[in-house]
């Protein structure tokens, strides 16, 4: 009797969801830690030097060493700050980046013990709007941190950063509308499934081919949203003036730092899902293979594409010089916005005829 009750479908769903959440969360945190190491090593290779390679074999234990160092540092809260806001500001960057990952599909369905599990933590009906809404929350982390620091230089840096992030939200959203027109649905798994087709049975129908202008705009806007070079004025200001995380030390600083890298991972995952077919591995469905192998390869292809885009972010960071603030705003409003709107028109005309 009791066995029957515990096998109630709602409990099974609960267990499946919990396991999915745990797997995705720990996966992202581990990946974010290793992206910090990858950034340091790859930037070192680009600059003709070795990066940190002492902490473990090839420096693989370096993120843990950094984390331990950051935790055991003194946690200093300056006197005249707004205490509550000071404490929650790092969470406002960490939290949205993590929950944004909930709608990203990293594989097709798998079947375990008779239950079909969709490899996506939350299949929301309004996935794309959810993405745009949550990514706007990340601005709060920056601006609250800057305000709470009670430091005019931090405030200045934070305001610049928030202006940059807000002005690039608009081309970000408008470029996604092109995809929306083609896909016809706001759900992200539909976006991936609609890219799983082929033209002439050879070329996969990825959105990067169907919407190249949107891809271009989204890529540049993603760089600006993640505060990465060439748009990294808020970070560079800490070399020059202040920056929104001047007054933060130890664990709070590590949350800011990790939050930035998690936002980077989320942007890469979004780019692969929206433009590069997500988990779709082309030309592989025709090869007969056991189902679980297909699923593993598809999840693996999602991972590979995301990692490629992370590498791309790192690669561009160490190639390009920084934009000046007026050039930055110029590009955001006078170049990307018209291009995104024109893209919507062109897509609309294409679809109508």
């Amino acid at each position: 009797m009791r066995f029957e009750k515990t096998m109630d479908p709602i409990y099974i769903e609960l267990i499946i969801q919990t396991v999915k959440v745990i797997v995705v969360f720990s996966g992202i945190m581990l990946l974010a830690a290793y992206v910090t190491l990858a950034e340091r090593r790859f930037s070192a290779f680009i600059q003709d030097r070795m990066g940190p390679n002492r902490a473990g074999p090839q420096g693989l234990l370096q993120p843990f060493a950094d984390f331990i160092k950051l935790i055991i540092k003194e946690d200093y809260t300056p006197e005249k700050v707004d205490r509550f806001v000071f404490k929650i500001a790092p969470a406002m960057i960490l939290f949205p980046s993590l929950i944004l990952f909930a709608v990203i599909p990293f594989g097709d369905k798998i079947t375990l013990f008779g239950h079909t599990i969709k490899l996506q933590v939350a299949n929301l009906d309004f996935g794309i709007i959810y993405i745009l809404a949550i990514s706007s929350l990340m601005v709060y982390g920056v601006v609250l941190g800057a305000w709470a620091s009670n430091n005019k230089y931090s405030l200045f840096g934070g305001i610049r950063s928030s202006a940059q992030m807000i002005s690039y939200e608009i081309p970000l959203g408008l470029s996604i509308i092109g995809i929306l027109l083609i896909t016809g649905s706001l759900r992200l798994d539909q976006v991936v499934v609609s890219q799983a087709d082929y033209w002439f049975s050879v070329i996969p129908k990825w959105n990067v081919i169907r919407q190249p202008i949107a891809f271009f705009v989204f890529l540049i806007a993603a760089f600006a949203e993640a505060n990465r070079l060439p748009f990294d004025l808020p970070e560079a200001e800490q070399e020059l003036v202040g920056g929104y995380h001047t007054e933060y030390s130890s664990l709070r600083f590590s949350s800011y730092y990790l939050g930035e890298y998690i936002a980077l991972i989320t942007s890469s995952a979004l780019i692969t899902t929206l433009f590069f077919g997500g988990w779709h591995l082309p030309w592989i469905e025709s090869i007969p293979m056991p189902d679980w192998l297909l699923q593993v390869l598809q999840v693996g292809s999602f991972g590979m594409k995301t990692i490629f885009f992370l590498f791309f972010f790192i690669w561009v960071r160490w190639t390009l010089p920084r934009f000046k603030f007026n050039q930055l705003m110029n590009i955001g409003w006078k170049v990307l916005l018209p291009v995104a709107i024109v893209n919507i028109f062109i897509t609309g005309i294409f679809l109508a005829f």
Partner: protein
Amino acid sequence: MKRVRQEISLLDKLYIPAILKGMWVTIRHFFNFKSVTTEYPEIRTEVAPGYRGVHRLNLDEEGRLKCVACEMCATACPAKCIKIIPSREPYDENNKERYPLKFEINELRCIFCGFCEEACPEDSIELTRIYDLAAYTREEMIYDIDKLVEIYHKTKDDPNPFRVHKKSRY
């Protein structure tokens, strides 16, 4: 004087070709480069023959300190890091010189200028080529006679063509 602005084409104005060329340069460096990092401690930089590293106190053929506690090195030292307490009697009747009871060099204060080596009339204190001193406390870095003689034993055979041996001239 009018400044002539060079006209650049539309494609150039977008900076896309320039960005792509830059990324090509970067990725070339990523895949083949010769690292300029010296991977210490497996590979150590070779220091010059006249390099001024940590001090040593020389011993003569019978194993006694050459130092006669004249305190010329302590006087010459700009950082005042040498402390000497001379003895009242010599080693024994055969040796008419006095010797230092306590000879301490505070390696943390030392600026490794080599004035003590230049000042010494007995060729007793010399600067070796050992540069990697490390310790966990400040007290460990105050080198007394035992440590300085230990360094002598380590670097006995290290030739230094720039060293001027004053005593061997007469």
